[in-house]
């Protein structure tokens, strides 16, 4: 019953060769995206965008010589998405620290300032509260700013602007103003960046009414989500992860967007539903390898949409497996996992054979020492143990 929405290619780290898929049922088009023809780069085929373009499957040896698509790293995929949208719509602009002249601290906007100029790719001073406020103001008049937080943690300085202005203005103005901003940046734990630079803001922002939150995890969905977020009339916060920028994958040449509200089926299975997002997806897939060797068949879903949750996909999975494991990088208290647990309990309680298990990071500031930092986040070994206990 699970419709596949875009299976990531085997080039993505730790992908598991899934057993024979059940014959795909007609894909249910739940998103409102319609194929739109638009100007695209000369190097790509002009024509309609496909809403559910599937990345090239590595399992087809016949086409190995002329594999469709091109290989990119995740930060390049983000840049492609940005560039295509800026080309398509002159109202799209970029704000951020060191995004222009320096090219972006993670190279996501490299080369764009040379192409589009200093005003359209704006190097802001270090004043997060104010330049995010500026982005909201610009959006109120019709511009479509993409704001970069050099590290998501810095956006805490702009919490008021994001919560009250970005999130609420559409409501408090009775619908007069739309705020089509995209706020993006890397967050998460990794590489021993210390407590203040390893924050997971998805748990802090999830209560803000009016914003949408998505988390990308592969080059394919990074580009798709970036484009979808820019085209969305709602404010979208796009969470990237510091450790995922150098992931390599083959993505389609033709233009595509992915739906902001849909989850991604990473690995269909029968025994247990594992819900995850962002970097933890890779820890889960690593654990899945071990689990498959031990005879388990986990179904792995990358929820991607952190606000609102794609309860349809999640629910279909639960109705099949009856057991849920959530693996997230947020802290235990008040994280995405906590909200997801509540939502699943409310909606699918009858289908659960066991209490939901939620593996999250410890409720501590992220320590600098490498050994301590490892223990702070969920490791694949813990995921394997949790599945074994759940499936007993």
């Amino acid at each position, binding site marked *: 019953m699970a419709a596949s929405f875009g299976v990531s290619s085997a080039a993505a780290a730790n992908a598991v060769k899934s057993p024979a898929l059940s014959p795909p049922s007609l894909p249910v088009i739940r998103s409102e995206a319609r194929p739109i023809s638009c100007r695209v780069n000369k190097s790509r085929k002009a024509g309609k965008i496909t809403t559910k373009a599937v990345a090239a499957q590595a399992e087809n040896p016949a086409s190995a010589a002329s594999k469709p698509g091109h290989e990119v790293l995740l930060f390049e995929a983000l840049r492609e998405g940005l560039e295509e949208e800026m080309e398509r719509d002159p109202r799209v602009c970029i704000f951020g620290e060191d995004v222009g*002249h*320096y090219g972006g601290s993670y190279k996501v906007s490299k080369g764009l300032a040379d192409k589009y100029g200093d005003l359209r790719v704006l190097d802001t001073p270090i004043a997060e509260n104010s330049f995010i406020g500026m982005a909201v103001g610009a959006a109120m008049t019709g511009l479509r700013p993409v704001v970069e937080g050099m590290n998501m943690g810095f956006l805490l300085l702009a919490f008021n602007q994001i919560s009250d202005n970005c999130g609420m203005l559409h409501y408090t103005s009775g619908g007069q103003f739309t705020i089509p901003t995209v706020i993006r940046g890397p967050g998460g734990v990794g590489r021993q960046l210390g*407590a203040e*630079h390893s924050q997971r803001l998805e748990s802090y922002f999830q209560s803000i009414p009016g914003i949408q939150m998505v988390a990308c995890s592969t080059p394919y969905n990074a580009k798709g989500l970036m484009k979808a977020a820019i085209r969305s009339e709602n404010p979208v916060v796009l969470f990237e992860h510091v450790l995922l920028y150098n992931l390599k994958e083959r993505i389609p040449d033709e233009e595509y967007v992915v739906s902001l509200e849909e989850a991604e089926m990473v690995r269909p299975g029968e025994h247990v539903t594992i819900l995850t997002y962002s970097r933890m997806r890779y820890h889960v897939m690593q654990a899945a390898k071990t689990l498959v060797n031990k005879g388990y068949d986990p179904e792995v879903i990358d929820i991607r949409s952190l606000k609102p949750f794609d309860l349809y996909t999640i629910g279909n999975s639960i109705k099949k497996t009856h057991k849920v494991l959530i693996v997230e990088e947020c802290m235990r208290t008040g994280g995405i996992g906590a909200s997801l647990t509540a939502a699943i309990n409310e909606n699918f309680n009858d289908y659960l054979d066991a209490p939901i298990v939620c593996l999250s990071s410890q409720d501590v500031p992220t*320590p600098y020492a490498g050994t301590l930092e490892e223990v702070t986040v969920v490791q694949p070994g813990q995921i394997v143990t949790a599945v074994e206990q759940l499936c007993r």
Partner: protein
Amino acid sequence: MALTRRSLHLHLIRPIFSARLLTTASTSPISIETSLPFTAHNIDPPSRSVQTSPHELLSFFRDMVLMRRMEIASDSLYKAKLIRGFCHLYDGQEAVAIGMEAAITRKDCIITAYRDHCLYLGRGGTLVEAFAELMGRNGGCSKGKGGSMHFYKKDAGFYGGHGIVGAQIPLGCGLAFAQKYSKDDSVSFMMYGDGAANQGQLFEALNMAALWDLPAILVCENNHYGMGTAEWRAAKSPAYFKRGDYVPGLKVDGMDALAVKQACKFAKEHALKNGPIILEMDTYRYHGHSMSDPGSTYRTRDEISGIRQERDPVERVRKLILAHDLATEKEMKDTEKEVRKEVDEAIAKAKEMPSPDPSELFTNVYVKGLGVEAFGADRKELRAVLP
């Protein structure tokens, strides 16, 4: 005052050959002119001639060489992957740390951002603790849990060590508030960079400090680049010492340790009587913003080597020492060798220290002793004791 200063530096010295130089150096006053005059805003600048002594100059030299050596060693350790994460190096800016320490006591507070290794040393931190913290060992000043950006030393009035740009300034004004509250005749130096000078919280804190006459001294270490963005790209008015408007300001040559000392002395006297003052230190960093930034994509190598040749703080003090015949070339070279050995030994010692125990993950989240326990659903089973 001279005695305190000598004892403050003594534990940076070990009693071998060239250290004798310091113990025998006289404290008789010499008067030296700063290289550049001070530029003042809303205040009369202090005099250009600075009172110093052979002992002070020699200890400036030794301490700056020590700081420089520590930062270069940290560079190698980072490339050897013993230091991970972010590492922001201070070489080129040593004169600010040294000059400031020479003008103040340990009761005065210093707070800074993430470029804090040398300030920690200046405040009395040991090399071993610094390297252990950088390498994430449990002998580090924050037990390995803070890292490069979180060095603190409470007993010496060093309040860190902060990762979020600009957030340390309101904290510093809080320190100044507490000092005014307890009337203990001390001041707070809050240090920030040209990048942070554009943060709103600076002006909020400045307004409050001026409103209540807090003994706050805001020190802008202007190294002309906020990560990759040059100051003219980020600031309409790069005259950071004037930005306080109603608060007086002083622009200082930050590569001249004596000028920094004079300015800090002047600022301390002012702050105790009249409230906040801004000091802008015109300085330069040789490394990039951090170890992940090469530092050459937004500035030319000629610029960097030009500053190194003309304005290097260590060279300036070396020339002064030679000009006043306080030590020979050979003696200074021996000091450098000794310092290098000291740093290498500290690194070796720090490398032997173990990583923190996994149980340390949960310590210091809260303060113990408030009986914080969490019981199970029936209140009988103890589920957790918060550390």
